[in-house]
């Protein structure tokens, strides 16, 4: 065997590289031109030309030529060819090669969003795709966004955005991650703007990078005055945009008188306003379900409340407005509120640039003297007032008869992410570990186990076991209980036995007192970190576990207490020994935040210490008699 190893070490190495330097780009955009000509409030022409070289598989998605359209966008021309880098045709596409498909997303029953695209030839790298298209807009709510670098690891040689706007209209623009100003030329009828962004070096993705949309250059365009599906409006301010949205709301008082009576009687049975809101929210949740249908102005205009009541379904707009109508019948004012939903959505972060594209959802705001309540009307399960990671802690546009107003939804605190475990385990002298823990998932943390209480026993067991890495773990019992409805808290109770959890070795037993809460996310070494550090979501875990040790064993080597505290968070582990009992305490807090790149090594060290502590083992030794 020795000889064999020696041979391998002596093998002549055929390929050898050092690892310094940045990653090569996966694609280079050789030329990218967007020309956007506004004709009037409703009409515009957009011409796009792009030539891109793809170097590897990860770049394929950037080559895909596509154009989205709906009833307000007409595709006038679309051409494409695929060549090698010498310009030799790999595939000449004809008109008949364009595929035309619906892109209605899962969860939407009907809309008119469609895509046209050319199916590219799979080939070897590098290859070049050149395409151009022209589309005509009839109905303009927002103008295109220009972002020549579509993602990390893409380089741009030359790119240009030109915009022409008639003199009686205005152009607003917002720059992100660039400060390049347009060159402006005026003619008798129009004003021409032109931006050129050249030689943009590829930016590499790093662990905990901010999202690409925040660090790669973008130019956002927007109108002041617009007209969409025959509805004129203004994006001059949040107030005017809110006014447009308000006027789209269907008339208020159209519920069936019998339903109104029912609403009034529900409200009459409650004491406080918050109780009324809660009872009526539950009424709405029981009566409806979420179905999305988007057509024309229907993308912005809710279906009338009486229709929602009759059909028993609606989208976020329809359900929120229906709930607003229900509350109005009980004399509780509430406001239709437009927001960007999703865990990573930046909902109206451009507060100085009124727009519609930073939102995709509607909720309802109910101002109550003690505290404002926000209602998510598309969920049949949320407790009243719960927004969570879907729409919590972000900007939103409240819409009323006074127009629009920027507000912020309930902020999420680190306590809203708490996982709290209390447990008691017995370590047997054959090395098996038996016990039971109770883990509470609070606030946003509960979203991970939402609905688990209604799962079948088999699913519960399988889902739990799928996440556990203790071989042979015998799951004795499993149970989920909703503890507190208003501020969600789900309790997971697990009874288990792990045979051979501790390793027996002569007189000694080795075991890790951290059974289920081991941190595993680590950062790789990076001496030339380029981007700031972005911790998007906080982590908060508290564990306290009592172990009973087998008779006749003493702690020979304990785990040294650890306490690290810094701007990123806090980590604390202590194991105390009291006769045949061990008490294991662990607390980990990691705050949401944005930190300068210089602190990367500090964070890496922090994670490293956590990982190291979380896998440390204790040594027990048999008492000498």
């Amino acid at each position, binding site marked *: 065997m020795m000889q064999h190893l020696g041979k391998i070490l002596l093998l002549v190495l055929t390929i050898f590289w050092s690892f310094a330097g940045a990653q*090569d780009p996966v694609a280079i955009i050789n030329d990218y031109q967007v020309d956007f000509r506004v004709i009037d409030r409703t009409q515009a022409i957009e011409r796009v030309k792009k030539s891109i070289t793809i170097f590897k598989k990860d770049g394929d998605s950037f080559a895909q030529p596509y154009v989205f359209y709906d009833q307000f966008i007409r595709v006038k021309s679309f051409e494409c060819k695929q060549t090698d880098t010498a310009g030799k045709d790999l595939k000449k596409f004809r008109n008949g090669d364009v595929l035309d498909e619906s892109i209605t997303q*899962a969860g939407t029953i009907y809309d008119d969003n469609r895509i046209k695209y050319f199916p590219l*030839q799979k080939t070897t790298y590098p290859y070049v795709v050149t395409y151009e298209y022209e589309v005509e807009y009839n109905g303009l709510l927002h103008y295109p966004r220009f972002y020549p670098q579509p993602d990390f690891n893409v380089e741009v040689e030359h790119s240009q955005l030109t915009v022409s706007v008639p003199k009686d209209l205005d152009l607003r623009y917002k720059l992100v991650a660039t400060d390049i100003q347009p060159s402006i030329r005026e003619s008798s009828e129009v004003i021409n703007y032109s931006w050129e962004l050249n030689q943009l070096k590829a930016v590499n993705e790093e662990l905990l990078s901010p999202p690409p949309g925040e660090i790669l250059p973008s130019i956002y365009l927007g109108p002041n005055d617009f007209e969409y599906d025959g509805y004129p409006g203004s994006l001059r301010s949040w107030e005017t945009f809110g006014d447009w949205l308000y006027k789209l709301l269907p008339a208020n008082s159209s519920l069936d008188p019998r339903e109104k009576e029912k609403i009034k009687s529900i409200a009459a049975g409650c004491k406080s306003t918050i109780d009324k809101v809660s009872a009526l929210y539950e009424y709405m949740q*029981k009566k409806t379900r979420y179905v999305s249908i988007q057509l024309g102005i229907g993308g912005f205009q809710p279906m009338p409340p009486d229709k929602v009541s009759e059909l*028993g379904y609606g989208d*976020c707009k329809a359900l929120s407005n229906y709930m607003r109508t229900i509350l109005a019948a009980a004399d509780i004012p509430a406001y239709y509120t437009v927001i960007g939903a999703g865990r990573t959505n930046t909902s109206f972060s451009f507060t100085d640039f009124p727009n519609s594209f930073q939102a995709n959802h509607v909720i309802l705001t109910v101002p109550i003297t003690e505290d404002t309540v926000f209602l998510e009307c598309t969920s049949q399960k949320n407790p009243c007032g719960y927004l969570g990671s879907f729409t919590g802690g972000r900007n939103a546009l409240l819409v009323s008869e006074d127009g629009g107003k920027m507000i912020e939804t309930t902020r999420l605190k680190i306590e809203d992410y708490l996982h709290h475990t209390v447990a008691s385990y017995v370590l047997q002298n054959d090395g098996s570990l038996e016990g039971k823990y109770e883990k509470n998932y609070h606030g946003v943390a509960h979203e991970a186990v939402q609905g688990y209480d*209604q799962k079948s026993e*088999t699913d519960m067991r399988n889902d739990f076991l799928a996440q556990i890495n203790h*071989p042979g773990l015998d799951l004795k019992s499993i149970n989920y209980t909703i503890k507190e409805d208003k501020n969600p808290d789900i309790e997971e109770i697990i009874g288990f036995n792990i045979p051979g959890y501790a390793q027996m070795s002569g007189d000694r037993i080795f075991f890790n007192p951290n059974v289920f809460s081991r941190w595993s996310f680590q950062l790789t070494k990076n001496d030339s970190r380029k981007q700031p550090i972005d911790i998007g979501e906080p982590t908060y875990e508290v564990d306290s576990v009592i172990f009973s040790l087998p008779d006749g064993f003493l702690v020979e080597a304990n785990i040294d207490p650890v306490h690290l505290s810094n701007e990123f968070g806090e980590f604390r582990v202590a194991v105390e020994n009291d006769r045949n009992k061990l008490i294991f305490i662990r607390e980990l807090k990691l705050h949401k935040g944005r930190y300068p790149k210089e602190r990367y090594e500090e964070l890496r060290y922090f994670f*490293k210490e956590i990982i190291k502590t979380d896998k440390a083992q204790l040594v027990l030794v048999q008492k000498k008699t």
Partner: protein
Amino acid sequence: MKFIHTKKPTLVPFSILFIALISLSFIYLKKDDSIEEALLMERYENDTTASAVIISDVGRSFFNFDHPAYGLELVFERKIIVKIFDSDGYGWADFYIPLYIGEKNEEDVVDLKGFTYNLLDGKVEKTKLSKESIFEEKTTDDYKQVKVTMPDVREGSVFEISYVVSSPFVFNLQSWTFQKSIPVIYSEYQAEIPEYLEYNKNVRGYFPIADHQIKERMSTIGGKPSSNAQHFTRTNQSSATINFVENVETWKTYDIPAFTDEPYMTDADNFKTAVTFELAYTRFPNGTIENYTTTWEDINRKLMELDKFGKALDRTGFLKSVMPVALGSAGSEDEKIANIYNYIHAKLKWDGKNSLFTSGNLKSVHEDGIGNSADINLLLIAMLREAGIKTFPVALSTRDHGMIFPTNPTITSFNYLVAGVIRDDQYLLIDATEPNAPLGIIPYRCLNGVGRLLDNQGGQWINVSSKPEKEKTIVEYSFDLEEERISGTHNHIYCDQAAYGFRNEYASEEGSRTFKENMEKVVSGLGINSVAFEKMKELQEDPSSLCELNLEDHFTSTGDVIYFNPLFFDAMKSNPFKLEKRDYPVDYGVPSDDFYYAKINLPEDYAVESVPEEISIILPGRAAEYVYSAKVVGNFISVRSQLKINQTVFTADHYADLKNFYDLIVKKQSEQIVLKKV
């Protein structure tokens, strides 16, 4: 951006894929009191956690000879009744009817009705599905779909939908899936097929069909002046009638449990209970038999006669000038095969499409230098034949295309072909689509049981298997107690299937950097100082990676005791089989052999206190085996661990053994060696 977002994606249980759509379902009840009964249901007793249950789903396909536009019409009727228990079942209230679009005609839904029933204060309230909740949408050039969303659906609702699909395409006799992702209490399908049409039927799935009946009955065509059945010789009397036999076949199932996906499974549709049809032939009274498919021998003959398959192998005049270049100085048959294989690799790129048929002709494929899998492998076969090597096409079905059912001959069973070289009664299978695969390695996607070797004698079934996925890891580590780390060399050799996977991942110029980054990302405390790849370009040899590395936090020292896991980061972290019980087979596709050897040098002044016990586990019939040993040899420890999976498919009754086998391995691989200061 319209405000169309959606509730949380986890709450949207349905898929818009066509395949899934076809399996979407619906009802049949004779009396209204059954609806009332369903409304009163609190839970489905056989599965109390089901969020919805299909009370009944009844379908019927039959033929109508009097369609005014296209004469022979294929009609599909369906009625489905669904009970919703809680909001997780709401997805069932939105459903889809996929419809095929042909060149001249298309399928249509002609009679769509729906009702939702709710119990209000003890009374049944009935809401009718109205037009505003029905949408039609063209999804692709070949398909459109009708989407329906049921009104007034709440927890506890029952709804029924019935519809009729009128189809001009007799080849598109609807398949029927009895099993769904929610339980189905009653499902029934009836096909009424006139003697003039013959279909091959295929019944599959793990849950048996409870009741199956075939009856013959006499039927009559015509008698009406509007009759437009052009297939029949008629006298000029338009009121003439023709009698014929109709075969009526019925399948029924009761209380089918919900289907759940399991890992390591081939396509889920292979396992759901379903019946499918393929048109075999038509034989109308006035005409000759028009064959579609019948036997595998017929399919063989038919394929060999097709321009885009067998005939393409005859039009190879252009190879005369190509062969000398491709063969070079090859003398033996092995050399000829190797040179032709290398020539095709160098000359042709695979466009990523799996196909049974050429996209054009082999001459232009050769000129263009690019083609689908059939283009490339047919050219390979043609060249091997040109060189005098006895070679036949082997048609097969890729893993994502489903299993081949030998009792059910259909051309569409196949979607791929490879070359089969006959040598002394053995078959050497060759696929030339993968630039990183050595000769004789069949890509994983093709390892799906059997293939059909197509020759002039009607063909035969052969096994499509591959050499095992073999890996060897050989390491030598030493302790650096001062720096609290371990350093050494890690050598990993990849053979056969594994070699091809490794090259696919890392053959690019930056491969070794990506390799380093990936390793460091996965293994905490690992620092790789250098990586060297060997034999990356020499396809017929085994490539390897050789790392010089440091490992931090991979041993613990307390007092005068040191303990560590001798498999370090190469230990298996968790059992891949987490489910407690399984209904469907585990299918690895390919055997594997994973070997690890470590030489661990003892630090000075330390002696071995204990090492893990040696074990050897063998599953019955040597289906899988594992050996582990750790021994002290002078001043080092030698550790050997080897896992071999010899059998590729494990049926559900062997699942417990397999799971237990992996549990023992994971546990063994987590054990530690203890050293003590002397």
